[in-house]
């Protein structure tokens, strides 16, 4: 009884349309999550039945022999005999149901605890206050590169995630692909994901981590092996050098204002406090999923990040209008 069969059968019951809820886990697309979805639907249905049964029992019990008007004292006190039977039958049935659920839980746990086949790709995810740093690890050191917030993975391959805490506790979670795992400073947690179908799978930090806990989302883009290799080679390359005059001036402004926190490989900018911007335009969103990656968002974000994510580490950099236009033009050359 795999996840997909259950999902379609139960979709009639689903109160919410799962299609437009991107973060739901009642419909999943990977071996690390599908067994959990079946267990989830199973639990939901069993528990709903239990609730309905108990509600009916209480209603019937209340209405069948309720006393009509009249003072309490008027009704005789009596102790009927077969009350204990209720407890024995009720508790017996409950225990059986619980045992069944327990066994199903343990089976599912065994299925998703670790990837059945050895993961062929390792990504080191380091959580910061309010964005995700992802480093693709490779036996050849030169194929190790850093990106942020959006992970590309090839379809059908198991991916090992090494989660390293850097400041406070966060939690990495892509509902459609796997359960969440906390990212705790001082220790490295291991997790794994795998996508059976291509697509965009979103997630969000789910351990309260401070002011902008609400704007710290991540995404996984599962794509064909060829597309993935192409993306990877692009990420390994240095940033393209700007041509137009404004973007050249923008690069100067970037080097003096932004280089202390951001890295653009191929230039002197080597800051690691903020995300690596070498291939920023290759990402769908900016500011950990808060804004779509377009000209207007970039301008608003660079001009005053505090207005969009109050309390985030990106300071309100004071730029003249001309510098702002130039630096946005430069940033848009980083694809």
């Amino acid at each position, binding site marked *: 009884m795999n996840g997909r069969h259950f999902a379609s059968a139960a979709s009639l019951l689903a109160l*919410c349309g*799962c299609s*437009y*809820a*991107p*973060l739901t*886990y009642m419909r999943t697309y990977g071996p690390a999550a599908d067994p*959990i979805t079946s*267990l989830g639907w199973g*639990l939901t249905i069993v*528990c709903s039945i*239990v*609730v309905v049964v*108990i*509600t009916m*029992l209480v209603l019937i*019990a*209340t209405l069948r*022999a*309720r*006393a009509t008007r009249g003072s*309490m004292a008027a*009704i*005789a*006190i009596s*102790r*009927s005999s077969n*009350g*204990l039977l*209720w*407890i024995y*039958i*009720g508790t017996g049935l409950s225990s059986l149901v*619980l045992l069944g*659920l*327990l066994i199903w*839980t343990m089976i599912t*746990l065994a299925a*998703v*605890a670790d990837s059945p086949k050895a993961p062929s790709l390792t990504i080191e995810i380091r959580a910061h206050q309010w964005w995700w740093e992802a480093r693709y690890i490779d036996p050849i050191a030169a194929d190790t590169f850093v990106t942020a917030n959006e992970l590309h993975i090839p379809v059908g391959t198991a991916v090992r995630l090494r*989660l390293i*805490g850097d400041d*406070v*506790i966060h*939690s990495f979670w892509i*509902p459609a692909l796997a*359960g*969440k*795992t906390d990212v*705790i*400073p*001082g*220790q490295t947690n291991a997790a794994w994901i795998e996508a059976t179908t291509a697509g965009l799978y979103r997630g*969000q930090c*789910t351990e*309260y981590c401070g002011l*902008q806990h*609400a704007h710290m989302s991540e995404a996984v883009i599962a794509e064909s092996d060829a597309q993935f290799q192409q993306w990877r080679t692009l990420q390994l390359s240095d940033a393209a050098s700007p041509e137009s005059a404004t973007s050249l001036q923008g690069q100067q402004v970037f080097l003096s204002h932004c280089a202390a926190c951001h890295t653009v490989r191929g230039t002197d900018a080597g800051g690691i406090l903020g995300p690596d911007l070498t291939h920023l335009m290759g990402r769908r969103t900016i500011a950990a999923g*808060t804004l779509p990656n377009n000209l207007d968002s970039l301008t608003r974000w660079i001009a005053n990040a505090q207005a969009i994510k*109050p309390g985030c580490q990106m300071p309100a950099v004071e730029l003249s209008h001309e510098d702002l236009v130039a630096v946005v033009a430069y940033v848009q050359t980083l694809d």
Partner: protein
Amino acid sequence: MITPGLTESDPLGVQRALPIDAKLDAIWRTQPGLIGTLSCVDHKRIGLRYIVTAFIFLIVGGIEALTMRLQLSHSNLTILSPEAYDQLFTMHGFTMIFLYAGPVLSGFSNYLWPLLLGSRDMAFPRLNALSYWVYLLAGVFLYVSFPLGMAPNAGWFNYPPLASGTYNPGPNIDFYLLGLIFLGISVTVGSANFLVSLMRTRAPGMSINRLPILVWGTLTASIGNLLAVPAVSLACVLLFMDRQFGTHFFDVEQQGQPLLWQHLFWMFGHPWVYAIVLPALGIVSDALPTFCRRPLVGYTPVAIATVATMVVGFGVWLHHMFATGMPMLSVAFFSAASLVITIPSAVSTFAWIATIWTGKPVLTTAFLFLSSFIVLFVIGGASGVMTGAVPFDWQLTDTYFVVAHLHYVLIGINVFPVIGGIYYWFPKVTGRLMNERLGRWNFWTMLIGFNVGFFPMHIAGLMGMPRRIYTYDHGLGWDTVNLITTVGSFVFAIGVGLFLVNLFVSLRRGKAAGDNPWDAPTLEWSVPSPVPAYNFRVIPIVASRHPLWEGRLDEFPERSSLTDGYVLNQGRETLATTVLDAQPDLILKMPGDSMAPLLLSLALSLLFVGLILHSAWISGMGALLSGIAIVIWLWPKRALGQRAEAPHV
């Protein structure tokens, strides 16, 4: 010595006053005026103060919740800034769990235990007063931070490193830590008082298999607290030392462990959430049978289930930490333990259903609250089972599904029985019945409001909405669900409002209730209402679980003696009985009104204020004054026989 007395009661069942009453009343009455109020140690006054203060905190917590619901009613709203929202959800959690749920049940137990057990007062009346004053001052100590904008902002669970000095340098978290340690004193002291009262102050004949289930509930909760509260107090002391004195218990750089806090906190956390529901289950098990006109089905299974829940409750704390990367074996063990703990709850549920099924239920408002509680209890329990299954919990944890679960469990199991209990015991406290028609409105508004408000949270959780986010983007499918939840919460708030209206209206214009309006079986209904200061004219001798129904049930020959018993009118006295089968043992000389509890709690609050202000002087003075208050408290008094009698000349 036992003196026979005449008892007749008028049609309303109100006993006629006798000269002995005036003598006992003079002994036990609290002086009027401010001094009396501050030095009062009467368990009934302290119980009511607990309940009233807890309801004030319930209302404050409710307002905080409604403000948050406004902020979350639609995507990308900016009613609250992130900092304000963080402080609000932390204070809402802390207030509801620590300042309402526990204390309101302490209030019920404080008021009812001596009446249920057939005693004149708790074992340690002054300790009882201390536990209330420390609770009040701890609540005030915490809430002082709110107007100054420095309220705790790291959640009621307060995980480091977010709560450590590096990421939260202000005094916010110090208010949380010191407030929790301060409150811990009140809880520990109260639990010790309950434990000793149970063992020593039961009426003769009330062996442990004749205790009301509320007594079982509070007893288990107290033992649980005595074992669990030290864990969180230790955690708070360690984090406070990390923040102020540079120790490294949770500081990763010096090989500290952030998870140490989570373990210590949840070792206390889970037993605490059982401690704030078991007494409520006791209320249901005691009040429901009265309205079903028959004793509770399966008294022994329910009593054992209560104790079993707390015992297993100590072995499940890791289910709050399933996603922290624990080894699979320990995770599997705790998941199994979390499912096993459902079985005792199943026992109680079927016991209640059997009681209603085989009884003749009278649909009073109290009954409606207590029976609808069963449904909410099962919904909360079911979602608890779902989060207990560890792989599914990897998806559920920290989403709104868990928020739905905890509200069903806390409001369903704590608030509904508490309000049902108030409808049930209001006549005993005030001598007046609460208005049934207004009660119906209050019940249905609360029931509908609660379910419309909190059931959609399950859906929001299943749609992946994380906890503690101050806003969310449109297009995630969470807008409609959150709007419904906001509307439901406001309706629920109106329901609670209606309850308060009914309370104040009935105080003045409620129908006179007489001593036993519900013809209930237990001892507290054998005394006049409102209950006189001395509770019992004579200490009753108990022969069964339901002394007032023995005649009609006629299951065995012995009868409880409610009118013939020990009068004990030589000063404030009550009877001490042996632990297991409650045989009369000795007469306890009870201390009278005393200012020592208030002085000690004020001195303690000075100590904690000094700590928050980093001023060694103020905290030093607070410690000194506490020492002095304790000396005053323990000074041996002749009246209590603590000093050698002067030789009779």
